[in-house]
């Protein structure tokens, strides 16, 4: 067996030596044979002839020997490849066009594959990542809600399926004492947080067991970014003290940014990991508290997620019996970490993957057309080879080898295309769409590229290759190499029709997404966000426990200074940035019987300048003024939605409402009605269960609420002139007002809304790019086929012209041929678009994916470009010189 293999390998790799030996051996035989015949008295010439006849054809014997060596299939392949390469080299333009076309199609598929790969296959950067799960509290309204700290401790103690479990919550602190005051992001974590993830610190250590519980030491772990930036990246940071919100903490370690959960989910790693026990103990102790805390766990080895769900389910049931007041309807939701990270991304990525696959198909069809056009020119060569005894199977294999070679070359070049466009692709990926690293050139990616390259080659070559079997030897040779053409037209025409149809579908999809984005960008949200800057503001930690009046005084000082800036056109303080706020309040309307379900409203706490800053439309009454302060009677402004919902036809001005803020104690007067604003990234407003809106004056915040203001409020500024210049001025102004006042999270209102639209915008860019590419490829396809048909009919057209046909007749001839294809393509494409419409789902909002106007525009676009592609060869046909044309044969 081994010997056999060695023999075959030698036959394969020392091919020329083996061939030489074979020739020598047979030559020796002939010499001996001739000598024998001469010795028997034959003349020399006769002896030579007899020797050859007895051997029976040197080449045939050689071929039989090669066969006997058992390397035939591989040698055939090698011959086919060599021959194929020669053929392709002889037609450089054809080869270049085909390879580039395939490279584009394969390249974008490879790039897209790297995205899909990241979300489906690549392991998360942790030890045994499949053991990691996300834990949430299951509340009646939220499937993935907060877990209170006492509940977490009971889950941790009561389970039998977890190796470790931790809880975390996002927060922010003001860092002082290390240069200029700065707002830093924080993750408040329980002791085992890093144990669960298995992440090792860059420096120092992580929290020890029990260290992060309430009453633990004031230690923090800092993130890589803060360490490298503000803390100078020095190794002696461990043991140093930093001041957060006015309190000193000892740095015990530095954590790398890469494996942080926030980073994996497409965000930024926190600057500081703070023990969760440092949270205000009163809040932490409450079993019913919703502090935005979510869990992460590592399953014990061999435990399935179902077992873990059942186990924690048992724990929550016991807790429900033990603490019915808070836990009666509280369960647990457990998701694999991979699901939690990539669950939202996947539908977008898969949809786009379907789109690129379509582009590749179009590219393949183009190349198939090219090959088909060329195989017409080669029919003579093929006929001759068939006549010389090549089997049709052999010819088919030869042609397929050629197109697979094209595919592989396209794939090789496609890797570069992928490299180039994956950078763009990843750069376009919106914040919050999770992704792992950049394009990774690993085995999976290469295997995928190789597989689609070969597949693309086969798809492109199959029809032309199979067609060659039907070549009629006699006719082909007689026809002088032009080839019988009508059936070829049919195959190529079918291809072009399919291409046009697929392009139509892609374009229709892209158009629907573009229209969605445009719709959302231009749809009137009830406010004008252009030129509005938002940022967070926290005051010196020294004010943390100061009396409310001192805080008000400080905020007024800042407000006055900001409003006085020449770059400020209008401004307002606010509890949160209203366009992304999620604050609801329950209501009682005075003088109305209370409805069975207590009504709610979205609530915004804003300053008197808010209406001007956001260009709110005042419908009725007035907005807040400077006089609506803490000394004046409490007032509110409502939106027209609120007015309609609760006051019907009545005039709401002067009416009174109560809120659950003070237990529905004090009546508050309605002084004005403004137009409804679309909340939450526009597309969610219509479906929001709570649509009524309520504005309360910032300065009328009760003292206890005002006491929380130093921790962070929002500021909205309408810039006068350049937004960037206004931001720069504010960045200088705020620290000048108070060295420990910090401005953070500076964004324009546009950026906030764009963030909500990120995934959709990303899909739009990519889909539009793909659709444009598809359109281009299809037009090249249409052009190629018609140019080919015109070339094939040169003689016929020449005769027509010679017989007196006018240029317009010739034009009509070509247009009719092309127009028919176009029309068929449009009809099929329309059918495809109508069928695919329902799958556009999440990407489309406010527009119909099968809107007639859109489809008409798409049809028009396809028609115009396709007609341009038809007219070019038609014009050439028109200008044909009949003498020249008739001489081509």
């Amino acid at each position, binding site marked *: 067996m081994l010997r056999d293999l060695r023999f075959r390998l030698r036959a394969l790799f020392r091919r020329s030596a083996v061939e030489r030996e074979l020739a020598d051996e047979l030559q020796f035989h002939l010499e001996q044979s001739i000598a024998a015949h001469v010795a028997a008295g034959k003349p020399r010439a006769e002896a030579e002839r007899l020797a050859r006849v007895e051997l*029976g054809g040197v080449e045939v014997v050689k071929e039989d020997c090669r066969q*006997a060596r058992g390397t035939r299939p591989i040698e055939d392949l090698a011959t086919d490849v060599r021959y194929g390469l020669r053929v392709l080299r002889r037609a450089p333009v054809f080869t270049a066009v085909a390879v580039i076309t395939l490279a584009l199609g394969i390249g974008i598929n490879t790039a897209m594959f790297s995205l899909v790969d990241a979300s489906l296959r690549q392991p998360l950067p942790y030890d045994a990542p499949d053991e990691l799960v996300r834990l949430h509290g299951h509340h009646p309204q939220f499937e993935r809600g907060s877990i209170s700290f006492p509940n977490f401790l009971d889950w941790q103690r009561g389970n039998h399926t977890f190796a470790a479990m931790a809880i975390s919550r996002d927060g922010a602190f003001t860092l002082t004492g290390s240069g200029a005051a700065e707002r830093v992001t924080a993750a408040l974590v329980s002791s085992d947080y890093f144990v669960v993830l298995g992440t090792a610190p860059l420096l120092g250590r992580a929290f020890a067991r029990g260290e992060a519980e309430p009453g633990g030491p004031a230690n923090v772990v800092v993130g890589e970014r803060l360490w490298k930036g503000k803390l100078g990246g020095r190794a002696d940071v461990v043991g140093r003290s930093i001041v957060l919100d006015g309190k000193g903490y000892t740095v015990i370690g530095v954590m790398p940014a890469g494996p942080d959960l926030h980073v994996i989910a497409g965000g930024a790693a926190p600057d500081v990991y703070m023990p969760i026990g440092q949270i205000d103990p009163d809040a932490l102790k409450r079993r019913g508290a919703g502090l935005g805390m979510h869990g992460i766990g590592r399953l014990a080895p061999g435990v399935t997620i179902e077992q873990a769900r059942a186990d924690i389910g048992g724990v929550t049931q016991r807790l429900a019996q033990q603490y019915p007041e808070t836990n009666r309807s509280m369960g647990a939701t457990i998701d694999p970490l991979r699901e939690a990270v990539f669950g939202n991304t996947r539908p977008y990525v898969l949809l786009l993957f379907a789109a690129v696959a379509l582009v590749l198909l179009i590219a393949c069809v183009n190349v198939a057309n090219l090959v088909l056009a060329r195989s017409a020119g080669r029919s003579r060569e093929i006929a001759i080879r068939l006549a010389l005894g090549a089997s049709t199977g052999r010819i088919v294999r030869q042609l397929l080898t050629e197109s697979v070679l094209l595919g592989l070359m396209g794939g090789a070049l496609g890797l570069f295309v992928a490299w180039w466009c994956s950078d763009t692709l990843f750069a376009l990926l919106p914040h919050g769409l999770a992704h792992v690293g950049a394009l990774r050139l690993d085995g999976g990616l290469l295997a995928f590229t190789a597989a689609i390259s070969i597949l693309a080659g086969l798809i492109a070559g199959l029809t032309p290759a199979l067609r060659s079997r039907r070549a009629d030897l006699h006719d082909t040779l007689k026809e002088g190499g032009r080839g019988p053409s009508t059936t070829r037209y049919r195959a190529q025409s079918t291809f072009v029709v399919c291409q046009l149809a697929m392009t139509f579908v892609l374009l229709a999809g892209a158009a629907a997404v573009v229209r969605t984005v445009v719709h959302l960008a231009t749809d009137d949200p009830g406010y004008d966000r252009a030129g509005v800057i938002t940022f967070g503001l926290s005051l010196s930690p020294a004010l943390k426990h100061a009396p409310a009046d001192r805080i008000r005084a400080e905020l007024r000082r800042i407000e006055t200074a900001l409003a006085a800036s020449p770059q400020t056109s209008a401004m307002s303080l606010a509890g949160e940035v209203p366009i992304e706020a999620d604050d609801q309040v329950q209501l009682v309307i005075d003088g109305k019987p209370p409805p069975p379900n207590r009504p709610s409203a979205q609530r915004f706490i804003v300053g008197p300048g808010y209406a001007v800053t956001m260009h709110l439309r005042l419908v009725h009454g007035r907005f807040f003024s400077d006089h609506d302060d803490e000394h004046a009677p409490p007032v509110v402004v409502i939106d027209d939605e609120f007015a309609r919902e609760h006051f019907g036809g009545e005039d709401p001005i002067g009416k009174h409402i109560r809120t659950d803020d003070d237990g529905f104690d004090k009546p508050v007067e309605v002084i004005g009605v403004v137009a409804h604003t679309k909340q939450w990234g526009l597309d969610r407003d219509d479906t929001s269960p709570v649509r009524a809106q309520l504005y309360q004056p910032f300065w009328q915040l009760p003292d206890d609420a005002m006491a929380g203001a130093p921790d962070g409020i929002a500021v909205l500024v309408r810039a006068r002139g350049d937004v960037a210049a206004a931001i720069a001025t504010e960045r200088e102004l705020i620290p000048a007002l108070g060295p420990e006042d910090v401005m953070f999270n500076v964004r324009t209102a546009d950026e906030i809304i764009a963030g909500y639209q990120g995934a959709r915008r990303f899909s739009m860019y990519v889909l539009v790019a793909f659709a444009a590419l598809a359109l281009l490829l299809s037009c090249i396809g249409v052009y190629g086929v018609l140019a080919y048909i015109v070339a094939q009919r040169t003689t016929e057209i020449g005769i027509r012209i010679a017989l007196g046909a006018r240029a317009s007749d010739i034009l009509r001839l070509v247009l009719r041929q092309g127009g028919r294809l176009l029309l068929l393509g449009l009809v099929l494409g329309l059918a495809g678009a109508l069928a695919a419409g329902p799958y556009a789902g999440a990407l489309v909002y406010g527009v119909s994916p099968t809107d007639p106007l859109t489809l008409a525009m798409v049809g028009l676009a396809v028609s115009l470009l396709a007609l341009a592609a038809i007219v070019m060869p038609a014009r050439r046909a028109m200008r044909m010189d009949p003498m020249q044309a008739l001489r081509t044969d």
Partner: protein
Amino acid sequence: MKGETANRKLDLPQGTLDLLILRTLSLGEQHGWAISERIKQVSRDELQIQQGSLYPALHRLERQGWIAATWRASENNRQAKYYRLTAAGRKQLEADAHEWYRLVAAVELVLAGTKR
């Protein structure tokens, strides 16, 4: 072909060429031409070997490891490819020869039986 009209020689039954080659080589190292001459001689010119089929057979046997080849000078000082039997080839020869005798004996039995 020359010999065919004057003196019709026996066609080789399928598969027996290998046996003949192995047997011939069991007597000593030979090149292709000598093998064909030798078979002709020993069979008293009764067996006609298609020279064209000899070489593919040699290459196949070499691949199977039953014979091995070396290049060296021939009696008239010309480089030639010499084949010799390997140990595996010797075993194969024994097995094939045994098969052959069984076949011949069986065929003879049948022929003798039908004669009676």
